[in-house]
């Protein structure tokens, strides 16, 4: 695996950690999504309590050339509240499932955030000036007695302390019967898709009172249901193309030009099952938990329970690369099924140049795979390594047999410490890794 040193290898260092120090995790603080914006200057997190916290990177300090700017809290707001659907007698969780940033068009920033049922477009804007010197109002806002106004005075803008305001600009509701698992903004920057277990809808960012249903896999008789949609994403360059993954380990690529309802895929990506690995849990572990296009748009990556697969969009019958995340869990599947860990949905991400992919695991471990060198590394997100500029020590899990020093045995892994959400800065070697309730930021060592 990747060790320290070596010309091109990245040496990851702890940079910051955000969140409570207690071991006692408040449920509302559980991080449920992490996303950098297009420039990497902003980093958004969503949590189970329906809050969004946005961090902003400090401008680089010329004197501190050995590290990049730190991320500090820029804005915090309550995106979603718990709701009760009285008609169906169901509680709608406020947990933020996904956040996606829009590219910046003016001074304000925009993002989409979604819970199980409702998507919201938020505008985050800065206010660092305010008008002062009104003619008709006092400074505190009360209107002056008109008889005392004898001169004309025009207000001027004066600087004030920076205020960051978040306001909901659009609310896209009532279009999903099932739970939304994905949102993805089209490369036309005018439309976006939202996907739930059985349907995918297309929205226009300006229009909230209707959406187009573009995929519907609900059978006429629910008893015939054998497959659900697990994730969906638009192609980064081709505005008529999107993919969606399923619980059976397949990915379908659809072209919206072909027909209004994209129930018939243009391409179906599926790897034949390896008969030697067949078990009762084969289908469950083949369920895809995340799908992400490469920045180039030439490849896509999928994450299933034990592996990460890279697919060339020109080849449907098998992935071009497969990386084992934690193969040592294959012999523990029954226990992991029993405690429901087998249903954990890990995400995955690409680095800016599409050369390295990253995903999380248990015991607060996360893994990176270098597609060029074919080397991989396991690192841990833990407060024990919290000295900035200290290179993180690689970890190793001992699958069986004699455990070497510094290795950890499979049975000692803490399955409650799972890293489901990770994000990579679009341009630099800065990564954000979410443990249950803490956000870790790591950077590569700059010399």
């Amino acid at each position: 695996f990747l060790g320290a040193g070596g010309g091109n290898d990245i040496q990851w260092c702890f940079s910051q950690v955000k969140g409570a120090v207690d071991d006692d995790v408040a449920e509302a603080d559980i991080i449920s999504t992490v996303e950098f914006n297009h420039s990497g200057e902003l980093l958004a997190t969503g949590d189970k309590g329906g809050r969004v916290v946005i961090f902003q990177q400090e401008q680089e300090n010329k004197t501190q050339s050995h590290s990049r700017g730190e991320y500090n809290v820029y804005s915090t707001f309550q995106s979603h509240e718990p709701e009760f659907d009285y008609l169906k007698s169901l509680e709608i969780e406020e947990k933020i499932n996904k956040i996606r940033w829009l590219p910046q068009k003016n001074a304000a920033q925009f993002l989409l955030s979604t819970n199980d049922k409702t998507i919201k477009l938020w505008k985050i804007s800065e206010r660092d000036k305010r008008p002062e010197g009104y003619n008709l109002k006092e400074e505190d806002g009360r209107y002056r007695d008109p008889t005392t106004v004898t001169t004309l005075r025009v207000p001027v803008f004066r600087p004030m302390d920076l205020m960051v305001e978040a306001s909901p600009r659009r609310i896209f509701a009532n279009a999903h019967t099932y739970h939304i698992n994905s949102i993805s903004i089209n490369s036309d920057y005018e439309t976006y898709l939202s996907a739930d277990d059985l349907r995918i809808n297309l929205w226009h960012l300006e229009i909230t009172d209707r959406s187009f249903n573009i995929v519907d896999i609900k059978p006429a008789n629910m008893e015939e249901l054998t497959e659900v949609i697990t994730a969906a994403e638009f192609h980064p360059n081709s505005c008529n193309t999107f993919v969606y993954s399923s619980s059976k380990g397949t990915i379908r690529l659809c072209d919206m030009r072909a027909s209004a309802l994209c129930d018939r895929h243009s391409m179906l990506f599926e790897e034949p099952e390896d008969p030697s690995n067949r078990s009762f849990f084969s289908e469950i572990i083949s369920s895809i938990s995340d799908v992400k296009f490469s920045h180039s748009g030439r490849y896509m990556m999928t994450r299933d329970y034990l592996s990460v697969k890279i697919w060339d969009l020109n080849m449907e019958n098998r992935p071009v690369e497969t990386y084992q995340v934690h193969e040592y869990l294959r012999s523990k599947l029954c226990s992991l099924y029993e405690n429901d860990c087998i249903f954990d949905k890990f995400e995955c991400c690409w680095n800016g140049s599409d050369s390295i992919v990253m995903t999380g695991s248990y015991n607060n471990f996360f893994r990176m795979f270098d597609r060029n060198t074919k080397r991989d590394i396991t690192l841990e997100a833990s407060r024990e390594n919290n000295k900035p500029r200290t290179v993180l020590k690689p970890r190793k899990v001992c699958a069986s047999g004699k455990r070497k020093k510094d290795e950890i045995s499979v049975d000692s892994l803490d399955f409650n410490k799972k890293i489901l959400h990770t994000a990579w800065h679009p341009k630099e070697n800065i990564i954000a890794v979410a443990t249950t309730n803490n956000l870790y930021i790591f950077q590569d060592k700059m010399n």
Partner: protein
Amino acid sequence: MLGRGLKRKLSDYEENMAGLSSAFDSSRSLSYPLKRQLVLNMCLTKLQTYKMLVEPNLHRSVLIANTVRQIQEEMRQENNQQPVNICPGIAPASHSFTGMESPGISLQLPSGVAQQESHCCDLRSVEDPIENSLLIVSDDDMSSAISSILKDLDFVEDISPPTCLVPTGDDQPKFPENTGLKLEDDRQDLKGAECVFGSFEISNSTSYLKDLAIDDIFEDIDTSMYDSDFCCPPLMPPRSPSLAAEEPLKTFPSCNSSSASNIQICRTDLSELDHIMEILVGS
């Protein structure tokens, strides 16, 4: 955040299961049929637990249902290949499996079946204590477990014009024989407005309504309140408006089969119909 679902107390059952999963994983003393039985029981337990939740997770339910289907298919093929009863547990065992109809799962095999099984299966010693804690499950029971969770997910979650809520007459033979009881249990589980309307039959083809013209009943009644409560699922605006008028009718499952259990359900519906009429008319 509101609590959801039921809390389970750690019971002997769960402790046994944890021990069994480890035994499965270490793959030492368990035979394949027993491993399969263990997985099957875990699946059915999970499905049963999900049924008790207000909103079962669709993704997990489908994955678990598929696992049950896979095992079911395997067991069917084995049965076809070996007509002699290797495992009497496979035979329709309506007497041995009471777990599915009642809220809890009975773990103790009725003594008669336990003896039967021990005659045929060649496993002993290590596996006996494990066997005794596993359920005997029939093919029908597996099917009904799958249909029941998936139907629940449909009913509770989707109220947009659902063609899937209408089991047509053709579908009736698909239900296992004990569905008559199950439907009533399901009806008690139903939530919200559709609970009352869910099992209504307003189709001209039913025998019990033959003498009544449906239109006459509603002729002079202002059903606008009825319409707004029911016909405004806040979903799927792209669907054509002409469907909206048909929605209430489509959601009523037909029970135009002549089986006794269905007529019994229809009779109960009649009294509910009266009750609703009273509310609408305001008498």
